[in-house]
């Protein structure tokens, strides 16, 4: 079975083997020793993860631009590359060439640290997200919790950057970001608890495998709604993009950031959007598995799991885009009200449902989405 680690191990061994031909005698034996091979494999593993996640993020931006364009009766990016696929690379190149300006009164440490930390924590989550069978960083018993914990670091760094940039708009945006976290974290965790109760595990791989009989989206529909809404707030997308509400706060907490620093924030935002979509797919939509009644041609080609996983992810993200295209932004106090007075009760209700599902089993009627098997 091809796994991400076996791929990087093979690559590492091949590289070091080629290197051993060139190197003098004492060194070539060392180069092919298993420790070195494993070490390099880990590095390659990280590089592949990094490249894949970045590539996906940029693709996600393109996907959003195209979808949003059609929702708005226009075309979206279309000139650089085929159908504008390379537009975001061009944008990135432009931002890369720009000078990064720090306001004179801004605090240097916080100002530089915040985008870096924001980016790094967002990337970190990919280390624990399983993409397909075998294609994950490591199997920890608590990957779900770990992912969520890293995920919720972000407001901290947002507030740090907002505070450090010494701008009134940034400050208000940062404050809002902190306030917003209180609204959505609790319902998200409660909704996740429902999933965990049904799956019986905090391990994402296990959760996906537990969905072989039915996707959790079917019995835990309420939890899915709560989780989607919470994720929207977590990703700071319209209708919950209060921290950077551009109508009143210019650009919110990243008003003072320009050039590559802004690109960091932007990329990290979309990384988080990607993670959010992936989490929805993993927790509720059966991950990389497909219903068993689809023809096996569709599931038996190499890397089929990854392909279907990505398709699902992009569709889920499309739903986020759809919501962005049709709903206005709400206010902080209304978000808090929504979080505590609507979403928390709904999440609690879904926990009750989850226990019922565990106790009585999912009603056979809802077994409408049988898994692919294997």
């Amino acid at each position: 079975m091809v796994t991400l680690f076996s791929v990087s191990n093979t690559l590492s061994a091949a590289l070091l083997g080629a290197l051993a031909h060139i190197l003098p005698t004492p060194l070539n034996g060392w180069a092919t020793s298993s420790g070195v091979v494993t070490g390099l494999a880990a590095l390659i593993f990280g590089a592949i993860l990094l490249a894949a996640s970045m590539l996906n993020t940029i693709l996600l931006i393109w996907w959003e631009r195209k979808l949003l364009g059609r929702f708005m009766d226009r075309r979206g990016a279309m000139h650089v590359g085929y159908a504008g696929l390379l537009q975001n690379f061009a944008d990135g190149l432009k931002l890369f060439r720009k000078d990064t300006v720090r306001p004179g009164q801004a605090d240097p440490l916080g100002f530089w640290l915040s985008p870096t930390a924001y980016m790094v924590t967002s990337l970190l989550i990919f280390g624990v997200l399983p993409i397909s069978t075998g294609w994950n960083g490591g199997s920890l018993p608590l990957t779900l919790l770990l992912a969520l914990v890293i995920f919720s670091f972000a407001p901290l760094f947002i507030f740090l950057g907002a505070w450090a940039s010494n701008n009134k708009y940034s400050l208000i945006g940062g404050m809002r970001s902190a306030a917003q976290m209180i609204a959505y974290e609790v319902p998200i965790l409660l909704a996740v608890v429902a999933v965990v109760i049904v799956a019986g595990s905090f391990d994402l791989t296990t959760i996906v495998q537990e969905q072989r009989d039915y996707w959790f989206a079917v019995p835990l529909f309420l939890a899915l709604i709560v989780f989607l809404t919470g994720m929207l707030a977590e990703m700071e997308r319209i209708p919950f993009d209060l921290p950077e509400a551009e109508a009143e706060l210019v650009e919110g907490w990243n008003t003072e950031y320009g050039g590559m620093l802004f690109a960091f924030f932007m990329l990290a935002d979309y990384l988080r959007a990607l993670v959010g979509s992936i989490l929805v797919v993993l927790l509720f939509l059966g991950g990389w598995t497909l219903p068993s009644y689809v023809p096996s041609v569709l599931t038996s080609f190499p890397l089929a799991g990854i392909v279907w996983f990505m398709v699902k992810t992009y569709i889920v993200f499309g739903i986020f885009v759809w919501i962005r295209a049709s709903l206005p932004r709400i206010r902080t106090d209304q978000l808090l009200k929504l979080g505590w007075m609507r979403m928390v009760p709904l999440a609690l209700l879904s926990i009750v449902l989850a226990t019922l599902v565990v106790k009585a089993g999912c009603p056979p009627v809802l077994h409408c989405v049988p898994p692919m098997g294997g």
Partner: protein
Amino acid sequence: MWVNMGPQHPMTHGLWNLRVRIEGEIIKDVEPELGFLHRGIEKISEDRHYNEIITLMDRTCYVAGLAWEHLFILAAEQALHITPPERSEYIRVLASELQRIASHMMWYAAFVQDLGLMSPFLYGMRDRDLVLDLFQSFTGGRLTYEYMRVGGVRNDLPLGFTGQCRRVLDWLIDRFVEYDHLCLASTIFHERCDGLGVLPAPEAVAYGVTGPMLRSAGSHRDLRKDRPYSVYDRLQFDVATATSADVTGRYLVRMEEMRQSVRISRQCLDWLDDHPGPVLAAQLPRWLGAPYAPVGNESYLLKRNYPTGLGFSMIEEPHGEAGAYVVNDGGEHPYRVKFRSPVLINVWAAKRYLPGYRVADIPPIMGSVDVCVGECDR
């Protein structure tokens, strides 16, 4: 904490500055600062022929150029004692009402953008283009029309215009339903807009607020009904009002006004179909004539005694009640032209209707005022 919202700020829709004193997110005090777009239109008008001022009127309010042309023409004709032909009056009313639709669509687009809703922005701009195409078909311009002249309008409507205009109006009526679906049928829209920026009618009158802002407070004041100019007394329409005096009320009033404008436009089109005729008055002072010719030398004016006069006109412009006061001292240029900008007064009342709300409420409230800085600063 004082926050400058402007002059370069997504909320302002133009060059002006709203200074806001906030405590937490609550607004305590506001202070509008204007003048960033002051071009001295009243001063330039003193050095221009009456017809040449029309080119300035398009730039006074760049989203409602024809309405401002109409305003100035009415005052200038009164000051110069000129009566325009009937057909031109109908064309002017048609143009003003189409302009009202275009202006309100521009407002709609900007307003939903302030709420964070992006696709209706593009829908609004897209559909406004249809109206601009109509304008282009009879004025030749898409934004600066230079269409009306003292004593009539520049040219008659082109062939086939009325049919095309009717088709556009039919299409627009359907779009208004779509707009309502995107806003009024959304719970979030009501959460954002209900009860915001309340300005009850008595205070609105005291602060001089006019137009949709006043009518959203239940007032029935509409100069087209109360003091009909041009041919409005011959057209059937209703005054759109609401009772809530808040942002939602202003939204409702503007949407209904667009529907009423479509109704008025249709009546004008019917009349224009049946009544061909001249569109420019036959008897005009030489320097106002159709072939726009220079005066030659100054002594010419000394040899002719032109009547002096005062002209005062008020019209119901898309943003409110606009006024013009023209002092004609017998020269070829007006001695003094004074414009009343509705937006200036509506914005000034922000001191009354903004405090007490949140920072996040500023864009919807100021968006519902429909600020056009061009006419505000002049």
